[in-house]
């Protein structure tokens, strides 16, 4: 009989189709699961990275690029710095220049007055004037605020606790900074001993400091026993 055969075969076909679809769905589901899992792992890894990973990566890349360009420029025989400068915008160049101007290089010791003036300027730059207090005092003192040397300001100003605290803190900071100006030198045990006590040692070091550079030849001659 054909109809049931057809029915049977179509049933089988349909069954096969359904099974196939089911299998497809299964594979899709599995795929989806796998992909999800992968994504989860990656996100987890990303969270665990240090916070400035991106920044560090960028910096590293920039350094590598820089090195490469430098090597290329050297191969061509150009001055790499000039080439770099040609690629910077004018505005950026100004900004970089302004940042550099802020530096305050130490000109070396000239005399104590200069050193005091330098310290004064540094301290004053970081001082923020209290304009409210200023206006209040101006009101209170009236004329005497702008008086010359002969105006008596004796009883007119009362020191506030905050003012004194401020001054004392600032002074303590100055003193702390001053302590760091000379450092303690290590004692060299196997250097030559040319002293008989500690005071003598310091004196010899002083002599070395002042006359050392001029007497090296004489010393060498004496060591050798004869002049060259």
């Amino acid at each position: 009989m054909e109809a049931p055969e057809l029915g049977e075969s179509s049933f089988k076909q349909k069954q096969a189709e359904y099974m196939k679809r089911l299998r497809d769905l299964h594979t899709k589901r599995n795929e989806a699961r796998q992909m999800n899992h992968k994504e989860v792992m990656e996100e987890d890894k990303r969270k665990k990275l240090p916070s400035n990973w991106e920044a560090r990566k960028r910096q590293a890349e920039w350094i590598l690029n820089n090195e490469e360009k430098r090597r290329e420029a050297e191969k061509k025989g150009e001055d790499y710095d000039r080439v770099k400068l040609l690629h910077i915008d004018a505005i950026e160049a100004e900004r970089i220049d302004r940042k550099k101007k802020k530096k305050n290089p130490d000109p070396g010791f000239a005399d104590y007055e200069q050193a005091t003036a330098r310290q004064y300027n540094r301290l004053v730059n970081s001082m923020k004037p209290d304009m409210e207090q200023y206006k209040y005092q101006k009101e209170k003192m009236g004329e005497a605020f702008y008086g010359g040397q002969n105006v008596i300001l004796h009883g007119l100003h009362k020191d506030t606790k905050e003012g004194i605290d401020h001054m004392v803190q600032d002074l303590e900071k100055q003193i702390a900074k001053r302590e760091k100006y000379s450092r303690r030198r290590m004692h060299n045990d196997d250097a030559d001993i040319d002293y008989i006590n500690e005071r003598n040692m310091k004196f010899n070091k002083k002599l070395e400091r002042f006359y050392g550079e001029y007497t090296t030849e004489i010393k060498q001659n004496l060591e050798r026993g004869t002049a060259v």
Partner: protein
Amino acid sequence: METEPQKMPKVPKVKNKAPAEVQITAEQLLSEAKERDLEILPPPPKQKISDPDELADYQHRKRKAFEDSLRKNRTVISNWIKYAQWEESQKEVQRARSIYERALDVDHRNIILWLRYAEMEVRNRQVNHARNLWDRAVTVLPRANELWYKYTYMEEMLGNVAGARQVFDRWMEWEPDEQAWLTYIKFELRYKETDRARRIYEKFVSVHPDIRNWIKFARFEEQHGFISGTRGVFERAVEFFGDELMDEKLFLAFAKFEEGQREHDRARVIYKYALQHIPKNRTQELYKAYTIHEKKYGDRTGIEDVIVSKRKFQYEEEVKANPNNYDAWFDYLRLVESEGDLEVIRETY
């Protein structure tokens, strides 16, 4: 019979007076001495002070040591300072004060003593003592700028701006160096007192009449937006210096300012005036700046004018130096011809 008791056995007479083969050196002596460690004493045992009696004892010992060192040599200021610092660390402020006063008796001109003394007063919050002390210090040593700097700093830090201003006024009476004046001006500007700053600048340029200071004054006016003021300052400077002491820097600054104000005609006038009035040997910079200015803002004839006048001057110099240098003469003539002024050409020939 022995005439005198002999204390030492008889030393045999030295027969061989030649030097030994191996001599010892001074260095070897010293290093051997160091190795034997003869002078090293064990450190005294560390004692903790547990009651007021022990403290009194310790202080007594230390004070005696300090006073002894002072008695040995009272001019060594560091002994005084160490003593006073120690008393400060023991929180004996009155004693520290008396030590500093005694030290000032020894040497009142020593700035470090004054500075340390005032620092001690301030550290112990004795602000009025400090004020009195600073007053004395600047009266005794008015030319020591360190003292003035620290005094004004202290007054400003305490918030006593009027006091600081008064101290600055007293300081300026002594007409100190330029840095001091600039410090005062900076102080006034910190509190936005531009009028007072201007008045100080006026006094400043009269005390230190250097061209740089006039230029600084003008820049100050410019920065605060007083354009007519700036012009006035420049004009006064020009008048003040007259012809002999005139310097190109002033004119350069003036012209640059006018350029900044987009007053190009005035700038041109300034340049011409300057070139006329300054003796020629100091006008290098001025010429350069003038040509640049014309290139930026002038027209062709202007530029040519400037360059021509420059070359003319160069040629004049050359022919004066070397009247037989015919090449120079001919170059000069050609230049003058190109200018096209007949009379001048005839004269030159």
